[in-house]
């Protein structure tokens, strides 16, 4: 069975190669080829899953050694795979959601002339992501890590003719590089500390290593996770990444790639368990991001950016849970899977809305769409109920557990984390209700011509319409798009309950991540009650603000916080002032230093050599007889020296 593991990665890789090298003759069938290879990978995944279930919990991990990649002396890098319960969970999520989004893209990208290329990139992404979660050592994981970064770059900038998309792609790539640097340093540290970077030996020998080293490795891994998972302080790229086609936002920037950081931390659990300081940093990052993303999500009028803020916030929950140690790992992954379902569903819903609204993304130009796109409304609505944690749906089970685990951290820290998680739940309910109300309820704001404003150049009448505003004709998307949404909505509703049944998910992951029951100072029932109360509080406030009152079609100026949140809480301004300007000053200083110090030293040497040779040159008078004297003198010195040496 273990020989099948490589097939998981190989299928989409072959698909990508075919589609990207196949040329125009595949233009008409390319999307089917891409979908077929993604589905093949999913089928293999399901077969392996069935096989894994047939074995006892301790014998479930499979290994496949493909070949030695770099065998140099004591340095061994292998291309080898490890399929355990954690990887299996990811494989099913990636190939499952991935296949659904391939199907959806067939409809969504129907009118794009570069559709074949799009499917090639999607397949490339699947292959890289599978490599990331299947690798049995950190170096191969790094290959997958960089691969998904590349795919993400290519797909964000897929509409490269738009300058905003090209810039967003570059921004995502560059910010990710900062995190990647962390991962490469962590891998180097592992090699110097443990002499290897295979998961087995590294994670088994953490007990015999000093805490300082483990903390350093842990912090570097956290930096990597921050970059890939858009956590504070490397979060700024995710909002702009929404420039990519919506299926990409759903697959890469919501369901799978951005959760790679959570995978990394969970996989390296043994390192973090032995380095409490690194764990504290992880929970701090998670708690800050979950509030940060939620606040940003409240202010955005762009439906995709609001969802991006929400993604950030939800991954904050996962990181927070992963930082809690064995009491949280399983819940982090559980929330990751349920989030994969409902967030992908929400993004596909958003894409479906945009599809019917001439690619309008401003929610202030939506309204009352539930009549026109009933299937989108219902699936989006179920995803919405799942994400806010409505009792009985997926998000309720997974988020509730995380909040409970946060309280169980104990001490003041536990209260702060638990409080932050609860507050985050309230804000989540608020902004998701806002999205829901602005999109599907209220008056039909799209019927009126947009009010031109300096912020919205797109509000100017399009050329060719003679200045007349023609309202869009909202319509339900084709079946090929609604079907994946329905499947994901079903997952959003039932996954959480299924996982929590008899603690099935925790027991499934326990052999890999270990599990400890947290001892919460507040009872589970109290937490659940509190979560439900804040949930209804958030929904209620949102209804008061956006449901009862009509939504202005032009954004009001808003409070200071709102304006800051619209600008992503000034993260770009911060980066600009600190890193861009700071970097500019640094390079100016360095250039000056180079001119004065380095060039000075080099030029000084040259000048002194010139002066010296000017002096020496005067020996060369051109008079034969003076040369003769010099030769005679030299000969005399040689003879004298020889005699002297003999005497000694």
């Amino acid at each position, binding site marked *: 069975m273990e020989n099948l593991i490589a097939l998981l990665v190989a299928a989409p890789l072959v698909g990508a190669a075919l589609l990207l090298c196949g040329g125009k003759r595949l233009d008409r069938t390319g999307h089917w080829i891409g979908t077929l290879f993604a589905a093949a990978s999913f089928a293999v995944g399901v077969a392996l899953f069935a096989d894994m279930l047939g074995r006892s919990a301790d014998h479930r991990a499979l290994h496949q050694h493909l070949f030695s990649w770099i065998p140099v002396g004591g340095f061994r890098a292998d291309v080898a795979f490890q399929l355990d319960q954690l990887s299996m969970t990811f494989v099913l999520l990636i190939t499952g959601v991935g296949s659904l989004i391939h199907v959806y893209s067939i409809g969504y990208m129907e009118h794009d002339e570069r559709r074949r290329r799009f499917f090639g990139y999607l397949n490339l992404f699947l292959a890289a992501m599978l490599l990331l979660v299947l690798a049995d050592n950190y170096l191969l994981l790094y290959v997958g890590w960089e691969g998904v970064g590349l795919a993400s770059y290519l797909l964000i900038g897929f509409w490269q003719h738009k300058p905003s998309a090209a810039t967003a792609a570059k921004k995502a790539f560059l910010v990710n590089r900062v995190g990647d640097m962390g991962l490469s340093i962590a891998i180097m540290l592992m090699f110097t500390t443990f002499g290897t970077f295979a998961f087995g030996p590294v994670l088994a020998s953490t007990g015999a290593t000093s805490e300082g080293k483990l903390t350093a490795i842990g912090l570097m891994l956290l930096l990597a996770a921050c970059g890939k998972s858009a956590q504070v302080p490397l979060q700024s790229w995710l909002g702009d990444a929404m420039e990519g086609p919506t299926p990409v936002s759903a697959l890469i920037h919501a369901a799978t790639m951005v959760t790679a950081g959570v995978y990394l931390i969970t996989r390296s659990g043994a390192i973090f368990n032995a380095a409490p300081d690194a764990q504290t940093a992880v929970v701090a990052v998670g708690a800050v991001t979950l509030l940060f993303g939620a606040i940003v999500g409240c202010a955005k009028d762009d439906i995709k950016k609001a969802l991006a803020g929400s993604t950030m916030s939800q991954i904050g929950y996962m990181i927070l849970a992963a930082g809690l140690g064995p009491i949280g790992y399983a819940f982090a992954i559980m929330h990751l899977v349920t989030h994969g379902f409902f967030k992908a569903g929400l993004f596909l819903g958003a894409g479906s809305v945009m599809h019917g609204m001439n690619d309008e993304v401003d929610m202030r130009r939506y309204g009352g769409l539930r009549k026109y796109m009933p299937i989108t409304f219902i699936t989006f609505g179920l995803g919405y109920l799942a994400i806010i944690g409505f009792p009985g749906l997926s998000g309720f089970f997974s988020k509730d557990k995380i909040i409970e685990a946060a309280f169980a951290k104990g001490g003041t820290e536990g209260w702060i984390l638990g409080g932050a998680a609860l507050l985050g739940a309230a804000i989540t309910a608020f902004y998701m209700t806002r999205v829901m109300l602005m999109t599907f309820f209220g008056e039909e704001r799209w019927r009126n011509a947009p009010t031109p404003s300096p912020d919205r150049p797109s509000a100017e009448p399009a050329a060719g319409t003679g200045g007349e505003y023609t309202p869009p004709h909202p319509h339900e998307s084709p079946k090929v798009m609604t079907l994946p949404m329905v499947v994901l909505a079903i997952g959003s509703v039932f996954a959480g309950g299924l996982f929590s049944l008899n603690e099935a998910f925790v027991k499934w992951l326990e052999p890999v991540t270990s599990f400890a029951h947290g001892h919460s100072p507040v009872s589970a029932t109290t937490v659940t009650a509190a979560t439900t109360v804040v949930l209804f509080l958030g929904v209620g406030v949102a209804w008061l603000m956006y449901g009862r009152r009509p939504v202005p079609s032009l954004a009001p100026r808003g409070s200071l916080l709102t304006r800051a949140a619209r600008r992503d809480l000034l993260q770009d301004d911060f980066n600009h002032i600190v890193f861009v300007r700071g970097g500019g000053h640094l390079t100016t200083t360095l250039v000056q230093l180079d001119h004065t110090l380095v060039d000075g030293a080099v030029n000084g040497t040259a000048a002194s050599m010139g002066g010296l040779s000017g002096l020496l*040159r005067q020996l*060369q*008078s*051109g*008079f*034969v*007889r003076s040369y*003769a*004297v010099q030769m*005679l003198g030299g000969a005399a010195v040689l003879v004298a020296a020889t005699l002297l040496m003999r005497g000694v």
Partner: protein
Amino acid sequence: MNPVYYLYLAALLFTIGAAGVLIRRNAIVVFMCIELMLNACNLAFVTFSRLHGNLDGQIIAFFTMVVAAAEVVVGLAIIVTIFRTRHTASVDDASLMKL
């Protein structure tokens, strides 16, 4: 007769030659003084050959003579050319190579 006296003679000849090279300006005379120095060396070589009772010194003397002959050919040709172009054979006048 003690062969050492020949060494004294060789040293004397070498000194005269060296002094001539350094003091005189006429290229022909400088040239002759160089020959004198070479021959002083030859004398020393032959004397040492005699002193040590082997033929090494005499062989080297032959080599020196061959080199000296070749040098005379080239040297005289150069001196004649210089004299033709500059109408003087003073070595101090031919100082074009200085910077």
